[in-house]
C-alpha cells in the first residue's frame, strides 16, 4: 500500500501535515508525537524580523470552531534559522516553512535567507486576516497575488505554495492567478473572518475585534473550495480547514487535495495527525485501494 504523495517533486511519506500557526515549529508537539511520522511539518509564519502580534484576548471559542487573532507573532527568520530549523532537521521530517510579510520585500528577504537550507517547501502566507498591512492584501486581489507569486518565484530556492484566503468571491480566480504567477502548488483554506461579541460585557470577545474562524465549523467550506480550485487549475493542492477526523481528510482528498493539513484539531487532540494517518491506511485496506493518490479528486 502506498501512502506517499508528491508536491512539486517533494515526496512525502503520507498526505498529512499540520496547518501553519497551530503547531509552532513542532517543538511543543514532539512531547506528544513523533514528528517524523508526519508527511511534513508546516511551521508557524516566519517574517524577516520578530513580530509581537496582537493584544490579548487573541482567541474565542465558537460552536464547533474558534476565532483567533494572534496576528502572526513570530521570532523572525534569524531565530528560526538558528533554533527552529536545526531542531526540525533533527526530527527527520519534511519541512514546509510558512513565510509572512508586510511588504513584498519582507517576503523576499525571508525566501532569500532560506536559500541553501534543507527546507523542502515554502508556503507563502498571503491570506492572514489578522494583520493590518500586507498579508491578506496580497491574497484578495488576483493581480496583486500574481505579482507577489512571480516575485517570490524569482527569488525562492524551494518550490512555492501560495496559501489562499477563503475571504474572496472566487477562490478559483485566485488559484488561477497564483498558477499564472508560477506557483508550484496552492494551499487552502486559511481562516474565515468572523466576530464574536460578549453580550454581558457588551464588547468584542477579541481585542482585535475580528478574528479567523477555524475548526470543524468551516470544513464544508474548505471541501467546496478545494473542489473549485481542483477544477480550475492543475496545481497540486494542500487542503485544510476544520480537519479533525479521517473522514474529514478523505473528503478534502476526494475533492482534489494531494495533501491535507490538520490545524485546530491539534488543540483538541494532540494525536489528531497520527490518528488520521492510521485512519487513512485502514480506509485503503478496507477498500482494497493500493495507492492513496487514486483518491485525489475522485469525485467527478
Amino acid at each position: 500500500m502506498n501512502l506517499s504523495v508528491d508536491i512539486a517533486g517533494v515526496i512525502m511519506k503520507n498526505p498529512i501535515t499540520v496547518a501553519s500557526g497551530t503547531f509552532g515549529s513542532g517543538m511543543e508537539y514532539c512531547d506528544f508525537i513523533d514528528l517524523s511520522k508526519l508527511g511534513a511539518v508546516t511551521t508557524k509564519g516566519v517574517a524577516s524580523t520578530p513580530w509581537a502580534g496582537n493584544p490579548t484576548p487573541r482567541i474565542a471559542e465558537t460552536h464547533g470552531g474558534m476565532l483567533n487573532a494572534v496576528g502572526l507573532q513570530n521570532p523572525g527568520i534569524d531565530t528560526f534559522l538558528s533554533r527552529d530549523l536545526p531542531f526540525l532537521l533533527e526530527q527527520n521530517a519534511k519541512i514546509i516553512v510558512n513565510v509572512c510579510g508586510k511588504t513584498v520585500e519582507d517576503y523576499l528577504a525571508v525566501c532569500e535567507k532560506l536559500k541553501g537550507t534543507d527546507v523542502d517547501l515554502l508556503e507563502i502566507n498571503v491570506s492572514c486576516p489578522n494583520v493590518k498591512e500586507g498579508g491578506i492584501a496580497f491574497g484578495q486581489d488576483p493581480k496583486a497575488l500574481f505579482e507577489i507569486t512571480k516575485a517570490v518565484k524569482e527569488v525562492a530556492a524551494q518550490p512555492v505554495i501560495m496559501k489562499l484566503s477563503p475571504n474572496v468571491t472566487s477562490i478559483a480566480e485566485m488559484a488561477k492567478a497564483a498558477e499564472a504567477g508560477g506557483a508550484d502548488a496552492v494551499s487552502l483554506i486559511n481562516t474565515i473572518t468572523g466576530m464574536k461579541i460578549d453580550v454581558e460585557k457588551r464588547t468584542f470577545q477579541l481585542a482585535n475585534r475580528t478574528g479567523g474562524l477555524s475548526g470543524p465549523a468551516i470544513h464544508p467550506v474548505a471541501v467546496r473550495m478545494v473542489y473549485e480550485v481542483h477544477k480550475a487549475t492543475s496545481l497540486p493542492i494542500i487542503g485544510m480547514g476544520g480537519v479533525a477526523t479521517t473522514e474529514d481528510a478523505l473528503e478534502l482528498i476526494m475533492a482534489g487535495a494531494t495533501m491535507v493539513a490538520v490545524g485546530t484539531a491539534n488543540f483538541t487532540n494532540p494525536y489528531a495527525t497520527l490518528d488520521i494517518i492510521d485512519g487513512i491506511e485502514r480506509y485503503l485496506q478496507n477498500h482494497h485501494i493500493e495507492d492513496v493518490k487514486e483518491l485525489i479528486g475522485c469525485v467527478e
Partner: protein
Amino acid sequence: MKYFKMKAVLFRQDNIATDVYSMIVDAPEIAQRARPGQFVNCYSADGSRLLPRPISICDIDRFNGFVRLVYRKVGKGTAEFSNLRAGDKISIIGPLGNGYTLRDKKRAILVGGGIGIPPLLALARELTCEKTIVLGFRDEEFLSEEFYRCGTVYKSSDAGNIGIHGTVMDAIEEYQISGDVIYACGPRPMLSAIQAYALEHNIEAQLSLEERMACGVGACLACVCQTSSVDEHSQVKNKRVCKEGPVFDAREVVF
C-alpha cells in the same frame, strides 16, 4: 514523550460554594510530577467545544495518585465538568506550565483572590517555612478551613461579610503583614497591586496569571502576557502564559 492525553476517573466531586466545584481525579502520572502552581487541561466530551479548559491544580496526593482541581462554573465547558460524578471519566493533559519556585528559607506571604485561591493550597502544604496566608473573597468563603492548618490566615471580602471589608491589599495593610516573598494568584487588578507593593518594598513576588488559552502547551501563542524585556523564545516583549508561566516574577510582567 513527555505528555499524554489521558482519561482520568473522577474519585469525587463536590460543590463547595456557589458555582465553585472541587473535583478529585485519579491521575497518578500527573500527581507524581505536579508542582504547586501548575495546571491541567480538561477537555470537553462535546465535539462542539474544541478547546481545553485550563484548571489550576489545587492539591496533590502523590501517595494515592490523586489530583484535585477547584474551578468556577463560568460557561458551558465548566458546566459540563460540574455534572460529572464519581466514576465518570474526563480527558486531561498535565501537569502543564512552570509552577511556583519554592523559597523555603524565606518567610512567605500567600495571597489568593477568588478562584485564584485554589492553587495556593498545594503551595501552602508544600512550603515548609513560616507562612502568612491572605484570602480575598467576593461574598462567599471556600477552602479557607483547609488553609488554617498551613499557616496564619487573614481574610478580606468585597461585601464585608468575611474578614475585613476590602481587598487583600487592605488586609495586608490592616494586619501589617510582612514577609520576604509573596506568592499570588488572582484577578489582574489584584496582581497588579501586589506587583506595585512588591516593587515598592523590594521583595520578591511570584504572580500566577490567567489568560484565555487554546493549545495550553506553548504552540499557538494565544495566551501571551506583556513583559518588561525581550523574551528569549518569542524575541519580542511577551511570554507564553501556558509555557513560561503561568507563574511569573513580578519584575518581568507588564500589566
